[in-house]
């Protein structure tokens, strides 16, 4: 077979397939940084995509692409979706910020939604994020009650504001219910490496920590805790990003879940209605974007009640996890009594609050 014959054959194939039909379905694109099978960050975004499909049925068509590296590949994939007729595209990782804005400039009629970023350079770009620190406040409260050794551990990914907010919020609320609490932070320098996360959890356990919180996506720390518990320890963990209920009721006693469905449904509906507008959404527990998974019965009733009261207060907008008085790590005043942190300041958070030992790597 010659190359010419091959080409001829391929042309025949090409003609056999009709050009894709135009219809009035709203086409929604999703760009994912990891595989859906990560069980965490990307998995939850894909749950949001499925919720959009369920909500609108035949009126929408969703397309997605997994494992898109940040940078040139992202720009190509976003462009490809726009060329393919997408009406709205959700780009679900911080590193897609500039690519999203670059493509948006070329496709003014397509709406772009970028997760966790801050650049909205064109009228057709919106940004969205979730106030995970609200959920962390609840977990911190539980952690403060549960710890018997007064040592809690935190497996962190990279030193960026979102992670630092979580660490601070957790510590503040743990210390509020248990002033003797100490917190060790281990920086894993990865979002996802199950083996390393397991090692980090073990290292914390070896240091006498009995409550482990995590801002990395795998369930490996839960498994490490479970193994320690099987050998007589009593270690508590919390689900991250997804519920991780396979490890309930022990060691996983509660979880912080990202739920993007409400936002995705709302924004797709806005595109359908023609009411879509640029915005910077930062929803949290009131919007249903940050959800606390089932608190198991291992948690003492009193602590559980306190956590539930806090969920209620945050959801009702009555309580902000960063309410003064709060000092920075060096003892200087950050928030005066009753003062509430401004969003801008939270978005750029690069310091620990008073009481946390150790340095933020930089």
């Amino acid at each position, binding site marked *: *077979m*010659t*190359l010419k014959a*091959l080409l001829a054959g*391929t042309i025949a*194939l*090409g003609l*056999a*397939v009709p*050009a*894709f039909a135009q219809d009035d379905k709203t086409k929604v*694109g999703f760009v994912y*940084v990891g*595989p859906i099978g990560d069980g965490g960050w990307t998995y939850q975004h894909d749950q949001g995509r499925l919720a959009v499909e369920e909500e609108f049925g035949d009126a929408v068509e969703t*397309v*997605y*692409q*997994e*494992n*898109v*590296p*940040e*940078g*040139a*590949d992202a*720009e*190509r*994939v976003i*462009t*490809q*979706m726009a*060329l*393919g007729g997408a009406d709205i595209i959700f780009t679900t990782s*911080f*590193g897609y910020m*500039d*690519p999203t804005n670059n493509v948006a400039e070329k496709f003014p009629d397509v709406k772009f939604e970028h997760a966790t*970023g*801050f650049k909205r350079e064109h009228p057709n770009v919106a940004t969205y994020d979730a106030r995970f620190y609200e959920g962390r406040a609840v977990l911190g409260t539980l952690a403060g009650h549960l710890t018997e050794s007064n040592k809690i551990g935190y497996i962190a990914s*990279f*030193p*960026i*504001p979102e992670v*630092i907010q979580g660490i601070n919020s957790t510590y503040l609320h743990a210390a509020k219910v248990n002033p003797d609490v100490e917190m060790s932070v281990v920086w894993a*320098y990865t979002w996802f490496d199950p083996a390393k996360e397991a090692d980090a959890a073990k290292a914390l356990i070896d240091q006498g920590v009995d409550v482990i919180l995590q801002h990395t996506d795998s369930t490996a720390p839960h498994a490490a805790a479970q193994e320690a518990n099987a050998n007589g320890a009593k270690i508590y963990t919390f689900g991250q990003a997804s519920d991780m209920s396979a490890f309930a009721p022990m060691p996983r006693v509660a979880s912080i879940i990202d739920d993007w469905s409400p936002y995705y449904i709302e924004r797709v509906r806005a595109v359908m209605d023609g009411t879509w507008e640029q915005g910077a959404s930062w929803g949290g527990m009131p919007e249903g974007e940050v959800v606390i998974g089932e608190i198991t019965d291992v948690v003492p009733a009193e602590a559980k009640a306190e956590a539930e009261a806090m969920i209620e207060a945050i959801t009702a907008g009555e309580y902000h996890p960063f309410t003064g008085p709060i000092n920075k790590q060096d003892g200087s005043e950050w928030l005066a009594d009753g003062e509430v942190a401004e969003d*801008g300041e939270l*978005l*750029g*958070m*690069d310091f620990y609050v008073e009481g946390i030992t150790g340095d933020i*790597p*930089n």
Partner: protein
Amino acid sequence: MIRLERRPSPSRAWAAASPVVAVLLTLVAGGLMFAALGKDPVAAIRAIFWEPVFGEFAWYFRGQLLVKAAPLVLIAVGLSLGFRAGIWNIGAEGQYIVGAIVGAALGLAFYPSDSPLIFPLMVAGGALGGFLWGMIPALLKVRFGTSEILVSLMLVYVAENLLASAAVSWLRNPDAVGFPGSRNLARWDASANPELIAGTGAHWGVVAAVAAVIAAYALLAKHQLGFHVRLAGAAPRAARFAGVSPGRLTVFCLGTSGALAGLAGLFEVTGPAGQISIDFATGYGFTAIIVAFLGRLHPVGILLAGLLMALTYVGGDNAATNLGLPVAAISAFQGMLLFFLLAVDVLTHFRVRMGRAGPVREQPAPGVGEPAE
């Protein structure tokens, strides 16, 4: 019984035909896999191989093929020199990262100047960064005899940590309120590496890749150094008698491949990627090793192999988005394509014979440094 009989010299006809056979075999096997996944195999294969080059949006995708192929070719050309000489640099990914970091850091030191000298300075910095990172395994090998395979590979992980630390701290964009990642270099005119002709995808990295192919071709065909490289791979002992210094050759091969990988990183960070970020490195350095071998360590072959790899990436993404194919299926498909390409290559060197073997004079087995041409 089927057996293989070595040809007296590689078959030119099969050298040309084997890639076509491999692609056809991949289409069949890949089609079966796509069908097993419940997707239309014809549509999937069309989306991967046809649409990016001839489809409705080919005007866009053709340029993207160049964007994707340029770093692969640039790195692979450098690696092929060492591979021919039996010097195994498998840490190009690290050299790519360090080149990008050094180049970006040099440029950002002058922000926000608009001097036209900044971009050339960064290019030099990129090459230097990659060169120096390649020098670590080279010098350790020359001085202590340490395996360059292991050192260059370990240095990839060190470079990745360096990258993460650059992105979250010392190269972080001070205007980005605490978010990781450097300033966008593609948006700062002095450092940008834009498309040279709008819509073609051709940036300076593409130019550099083509230049590297030509230079490597000339080096291997005409220059004495090229002869030494080939000799060292094919017959190390003869090379020593011919006065080739193994140490100098190691330094040359690792330095050149490091510098080219560093350049690729620099062109990527100033153009298509735009910034130093935690996830800047996407495996070009490893994929380039495959490209080098697919191209049979020949500069022109590498150019073609780089374009083919780029097509499977660009087309694969296209198929994944439009047909909902899992991205894993694309990766398995690429693996199959490589298997078939490597497998049918046997026909270039061997004849398939039926029946018992007659006495044949033993031929020396070809080493990895002795590619078909």
